């Protein structure tokens, strides 16, 4: 009798403990999946938001529900001296060391009258000038070069690079051109992935486990949001809305997928 009671009680304790362990284990697995889904969503959002936010006017080049191409500045420089047609001495905060030259997809000139940018694609090697004395030339035109001589650099643009040659006092932007695409994941087959492609480079998958509901939407000034914007209206986009969602299959059968998502509106604040 004593043995029976002891066995029953110990069985109960073992069952309770095992049950608690299993519940905890399931909770932990679900929590891990939720965290992964959140990571995917957060990563995707950060990746897109950062470049959309920095895009200047006319910075959206392709606007579709699953594809977005953005032109955003790597640096905006000021021409403080022009030495002949091809050589522009510019001020660039931090100099060449601060530039991610691999990312540079071209240069754009700001029309001082309208503020619009005229962009031309070219690699950094085609833009980089000689190592003359740009700081000295700029100082002659009134630039304060004290302590920042390294921030002055020479760009060499051919006479026909832009429709109008930049003059001293003009702004020249060095830009990147990035395409974001939501398509079948290569890293996690069966789900979607967010791919990022720098200009001229193949796309790289940056976020996996993306749900089919993820998409881009666009707000045109004076209008509502739409999935697609025609080429003629791209310049009037003033905000991009990203519906980011991730989905993970459950740790055990019979349970619903673990999903996480949010909708983020990214105003193009530099477009003023």
């Amino acid at each position, binding site marked *: 009798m004593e043995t029976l009671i002891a066995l029953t009680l110990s069985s109960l304790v073992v069952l309770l403990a095992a049950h608690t362990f299993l519940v905890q284990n399931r909770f932990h697995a679900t929590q891990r999946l939720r965290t992964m889904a959140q990571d995917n969503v957060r990563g995707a959002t950060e990746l897109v938001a950062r470049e959309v936010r920095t895009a200047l006017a006319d910075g959206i080049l392709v606007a579709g529900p699953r594809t977005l191409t953005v032109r955003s500045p790597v640096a*905006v420089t000021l021409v403080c001296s022009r030495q002949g047609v091809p050589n522009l001495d510019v001020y660039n905060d931090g100099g060449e060391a601060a530039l991610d030259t691999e990312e540079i997809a071209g240069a754009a000139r700001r029309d001082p009258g309208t503020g619009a940018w005229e962009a031309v694609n070219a690699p950094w090697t085609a833009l980089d000038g000689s190592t003359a004395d740009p700081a000295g030339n700029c100082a002659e035109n009134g630039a304060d070069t004290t302590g920042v001589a390294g921030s002055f650099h020479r760009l060499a643009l051919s006479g026909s690079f832009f429709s109008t040659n930049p003059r001293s006092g003009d702004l020249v932007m060095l830009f990147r051109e990035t395409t974001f695409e939501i398509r079948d994941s290569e890293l996690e087959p069966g789900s979607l992935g967010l791919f990022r492609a720098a200009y001229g480079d193949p796309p790289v998958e940056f976020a996996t486990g993306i749900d089919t509901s993820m998409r881009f939407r666009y707000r045109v000034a004076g209008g509502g949001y739409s999935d697609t914007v025609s080429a003629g209206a791209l310049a009037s986009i003033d905000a991009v809305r990203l519906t980011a969602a991730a989905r993970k299959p459950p740790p055990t059968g019979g349970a619903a997928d673990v999903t996480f998502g949010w909708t983020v509106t990214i105003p193009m604040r530099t477009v003023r």
Partner: protein
Amino acid sequence: MRHARCRIRRGVTDPRGGFVLVFVVFVLFAISVAGLTGYLLVSSEHELARYSGQGAEALTVARGGLERFAAEQLGVVPDTVSYALGRGIATVTTRKLYTVDPVTDMYYLRSEGTVDDIRTPDAPARRVVGGYAVRRRRPVRLHAAVLITADDIDVTDPGEILGRDQQVSLGCSTGGPPHLTGAIARLGVTEDDPSAVRGNPDYELWPGGWSGIVDSVGVRWDVITDPEFPVDYENTLPDFGALPPDSFPVIRYTGWVSAGFSGRGVLIVDGVFDPTTSFNWDGIVLAGQIDDMVEGFVDGILIAGLEGPNPYASIDFRADVNYHSCYVHAANESLSYLELLPNTVFELN
């Protein structure tokens, strides 16, 4: 006592006694490990989210600092300015990069926003934005010694308006034009004494509307009269003796200003300017409206009626206003401002 010893002995020799205990301890350990792992996972996620939020906050602080600096800047451009914005600090640094012409410069503005976290005091969230601005060094366009958007200016004794430069060798080599028009009104300028209004020409009539006249002056009237817009002195005069002689501060008065004081700089009257015989000013006087009787003495220029059509159509002008290029030049520099170029602000990191 005997009975207790017997129980202890029996427990030690019972072969099943430790099994449940060991199992439960093992399961509790496993649960603890799982719980701890879950906690670490969630807390690291929370930390990541927090850092991400602080980064976004730092960016907002940096942008806010840049915009604020460009909007509030008046006069000499400082090298560095810091603002406490929200939970962060924006440090704005400036650099002159190009002289477009004698009255226009190009500047680079860099704003670094930092948001501290007491848990990681050595590594605050930090974001940097840059942008370009044009500095309008002397924004007030000089048309006349006296410009009033009233219908008539009637110059009566002892009033005198001289548009010819009165500066006499003060070492001012960068003064304005040597001669201005004497007086400008909408419909008429009359004088008791034919030599009371002198200039090049003596006077002009600008019959156009008030807004056209005001636009031609180049004064950002709505900005500099905004109570939130910081000026050097508000409704009070500085101790001019304590200021360097080349300092021409910006002073703003609000309401009906019966002015009987002396001073120099830019006097902004956001209300009705009513100068008395003891008023004496070197520099620029800008008034929203002006009383129908004007007295006193100005070595510089007087522009009135910037608020709207002047409530008094005809002005009995008994003041002595002499254009003085040096004073006007110095006062005009005090009104210099930065204009952030649209579509040029970008993130650096």
